[in-house]
């Protein structure tokens, strides 16, 4: 046979392309083996060491992995999008692990790391998947790991409730998505999502571009989107989000809010780039995406106004942010994808920062309601300043990174409205900006209790904020501030990574 290559270089090339994922996959059995042989005394320590080591190694590998989009297997695509969201997922995994090890997860670290590594690798592969079957496997890995992590505090009734709700909603969403996928496969005749340059095989993208698709194809796409909307907590599939974030360990909630959502957005970008690559459905799909985006952000922001629990509030804020990010997808073009990648990277820092700090307060006071933050501006000025920066950034005000992030997103909406003469997109942009104003209402409540409380209400006693916690918070907050002013570099990076999606 002329093509004769031994299979060893073939597979090893794939492993090189996806070295980070390979390391994470390999670490799972290694942790389990180590747990069995380490003995009860060193068990937790060994698990933490291997788990954290694998995550850090994977992150380093992810930094240097190629993003040229060369396809060695039909299933996975090593392009910029995969690289961007792989980095996001692994970074989130590291920070969630640090947060969990600071006191939330004291027992069963082996199991925790197995689930966390599974979730991270699931998120990475979800972002890289170029085949519906691989995509479904990866999403389910992410989901099932998420269910396990959400219910990880077995002694806590809320944690169990969170896991249960997550499972039930997740199963329904997953079924809907799978049904949509089978229909898409039936219409397109292939399960490959996109044909990369230089390849000739058929894909959903090439079929959608050439064939006039029936209305049922549109329905199938919407069904797939429904499943993905659940992953990113977009309306009308956002119900689980506040309950799960409230009940789950805080670091797990942070992971779900960033890595899980990020992976969902990677798929949405990839999938919608495929189905809008021509044909007559593009405009309808854009309208669907925009309307879902607007409804999502409005629901999230309005509901957040009435929240008194910091974790629930951040959950509604995460819902609203799913709406903002969807706006960038709705324009279905290169610039929109760049804006989404840029915002996702900014979102990583500010959301993880906010969740990490909520976790610190929860650990010290055992409370997650907003009143627990009373007077922190005076008791722990550094902590309060960092939290304020993250919240201002989530609102989208300068000089924080949230401002350029939101600016790029809505710039695309108005540009699209101008190009297409679309009044829907124009008013969509206006509603989006109004949403930013609404969100000011609840983020500032934190600032109010932290800084503008009566002196006599300030609880006495010290608020410990040092060591690893201080380092982590500064590491997460500093970029929010720096990128608010010097965002050009990140924008160029986002531009490179998002190249070739649409």
């Amino acid at each position, binding site marked *: 046979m002329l093509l004769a290559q031994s299979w060893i270089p073939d*597979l090893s090339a*794939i492993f090189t392309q996806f070295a980070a994922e390979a390391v994470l*996959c390999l670490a*799972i*059995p290694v942790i*389990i083996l180590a747990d069995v042989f380490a003995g009860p005394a060193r068990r937790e320590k060994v698990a933490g060491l291997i788990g954290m080591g694998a995550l850090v190694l994977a992150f380093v590998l992810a930094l240097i992995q190629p993003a040229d989009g060369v396809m060695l*297997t*039909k*299933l*996975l695509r090593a392009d910029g999008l995969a690289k961007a969201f792989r980095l996001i997922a692994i970074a989130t995994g590291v920070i969630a692990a640090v947060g969990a090890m600071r006191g939330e997860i004291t*027992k*069963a670290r*082996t*199991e925790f790391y*197995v*689930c966390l*590594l*599974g979730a991270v*690798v*699931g998120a990475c*592969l979800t972002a890289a998947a170029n*085949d519906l*079957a*691989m995509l479904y*496997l*990866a999403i*389910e*890995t992410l989901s*099932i*790991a998420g269910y*396990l992590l959400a*219910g990880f505090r*077995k*002694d806590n009734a809320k944690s169990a409730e969170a896991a249960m709700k997550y499972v039930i909603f997740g199963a329904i969403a997953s079924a809907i998505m799978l049904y949509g996928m089978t*229909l898409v*496969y*039936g*219409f*397109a*005749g292939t399960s490959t999502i996109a044909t990369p340059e230089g390849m000739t095989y058929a894909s959903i993208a090439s*079929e959608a571009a050439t064939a006039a698709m*029936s*209305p*049922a*194809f549109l*329905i199938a796409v919407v069904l797939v989107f429904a499943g993905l909307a659940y992953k990113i907590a977009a309306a009308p599939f956002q119900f689980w989000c506040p309950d799960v974030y409230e009940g789950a360990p805080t670091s797990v909630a942070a992971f779900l809010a960033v890595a899980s959502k990020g992976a969902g957005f990677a798929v949405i970008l990839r999938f919608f780039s495929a189905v809008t690559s021509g044909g007559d459905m593009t405009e309808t799909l854009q309208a669907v995406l925009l309307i879902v985006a607007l409804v999502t952000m409005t629901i999230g922001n309005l509901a957040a106004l009435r929240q008194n629990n910091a974790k629930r509030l951040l959950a509604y804020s995460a819902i609203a942010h799913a709406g903002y990010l969807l706006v960038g997808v709705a324009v279905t073009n290169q610039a929109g994808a760049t804006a989404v990648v840029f915002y996702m990277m900014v979102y990583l820092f500010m959301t993880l920062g906010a969740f990490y700090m909520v976790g610190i307060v929860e650990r010290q006071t055992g409370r997650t309601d907003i009143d627990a933050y009373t007077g922190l501006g005076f008791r722990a000025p550094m902590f309060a300043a960092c939290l304020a920066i993250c919240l201002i950034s989530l609102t989208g005000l300068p000089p924080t990174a949230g401002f350029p992030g939101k600016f790029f997103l809505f710039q695309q909406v108005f540009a699209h409205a101008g190009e297409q003469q679309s009044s829907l997109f124009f008013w969509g942009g206006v509603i989006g900006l109004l949403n930013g104003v609404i969100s000011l209402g609840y983020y500032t409540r934190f600032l109010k209790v932290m800084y503008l409380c009566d002196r006599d209400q300030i609880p006495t006693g010290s608020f410990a904020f040092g060591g690893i916690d201080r380092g982590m918070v500064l590491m997460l907050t500093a970029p929010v501030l720096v990128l608010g002013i010097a965002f050009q570099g990140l924008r160029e990076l986002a531009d490179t990574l998002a190249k070739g999606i649409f």
Partner: protein
Amino acid sequence: MGIDAIVWWLFAAVSVVGSLFAVLSPSIVRAVFSLLLAFGGVAGIYAVAGADFLAILQIVVYVGGVLVLIAFGILLTGRTAQALGEHEVKNRPLGILIAAGIFIGLLGALMKSSFKIGGNATNEPTTEAIGKLLLGDYIVAFEFASVFLLMALIGAAYLVRREEA
């Protein structure tokens, strides 16, 4: 209508009746066992459609595994004796309306469209072809599935395990 079509409709009827029993039965244990009928009917549909591997999979995994899991899951709650109707579902008419609307909409759309897959389905055994794909093109997914199953195993064992004091 050929014999194939008759058998197809027969299995379809079995699975629909089974599903209806599962949804409407007031006893949750009976609901679980009527799922047996539904799963069996679906397996039959797969077989008639020429998807032999899927039919086997349906029997082995769903009838043999998932159903048992659901049964155990239900039986360990200890609330099986109670009728399900206790929690009055307020939104039932609305739910029925939405379900019917989705069904009719989907059916209408699917009737009007043409599938690319299906017309060229052959009657050859599928198991070997699936094995070929699984070990070739889908090798990454196949090996990843083992890691996925391992994770699920560890997680499930953790959640069920009683913590040692």
